[in-house]
């Protein structure tokens, strides 16, 4: 009976580990996007207010006001930062769950060992 409980906990632990891995991958993607957007913002900041800025929407280049482009990129950077924060919290929560799970598994393993003796 304890064996079945142990297997169940182990399965849940593996699922939590996978979740942590996925969160890590998403975080890396977000960081890359953040980096790219920061670079674009720097370039846009260097422009004169009469510069010609175009945004590629699908296969079409649409002329955009430089200040509008700057605010769009700024908003995107804010959004990515808030996503990153949310991810950070999810990561901490999941990590804690995994720790607790690990502790539980060790308890069950110890109990199983003492049963066998």
């Amino acid at each position, binding site marked *: 009976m304890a064996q079945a409980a142990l297997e169940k906990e182990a399965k849940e632990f593996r699922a939590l580990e996978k979740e942590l891995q996925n969160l890590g991958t998403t975080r890396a993607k977000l960081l890359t996007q953040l980096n*790219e*957007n920061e*670079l*674009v913002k720097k*370039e*846009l900041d260097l*422009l004169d207010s009469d*510069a*010609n*800025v*175009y*945004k*590629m*929407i699908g296969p079409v*280049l649409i002329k955009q006001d430089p200040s509008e*482009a700057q605010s769009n*990129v700024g908003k*995107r950077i804010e959004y990515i930062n808030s996503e990153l924060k949310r991810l950070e919290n999810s990561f901490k929560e999941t990590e804690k769950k995994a720790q607790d799970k690990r502790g539980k598994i060790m308890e069950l393993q110890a109990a199983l060992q003492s049963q066998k003796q």
Partner: protein
Amino acid sequence: MAEQAINLSNLTLEQLDGLKQQVEEEVNQLTGSLQHLRSATARFLDSKESSSSLPGNSGKEILVPMTSSLYVKGKLANDKEVLVDIGTGYYVSKTIEETKAYADRKVSLIQEQVTKVQQALQVKRNNLDAVVSVMQQKIYALNQQQSPSK
């Protein structure tokens, strides 16, 4: 990854081998990154050179790519300004001088990264040498035990 001071001589040959593989993997990754950065630099320098060759060619005949295998004859209308892709779908019209300055900015950004990667690579290479050297010592000691020199 937190660096811990691991006493290499306390590890078994198996553990050392595992560590060696891990460090080799890291060296390969860093070398790959370095190549990536170098090719990016080459592309920017290429763009710089191409844009420099535009002035004075207004009205000249050019071949415009429509698809990867179809080109159409055209004439160079504007030899003073180019559209530069600055990322995330944004393009900016720049003069040749501004384009060259842009390329220079990007190249120096990349150079900063290259320096960082080279430093990290050197540290990893040193680690690898240390691991291999301890491994060799242990193997030698093992051989001495099994067949003591006369």
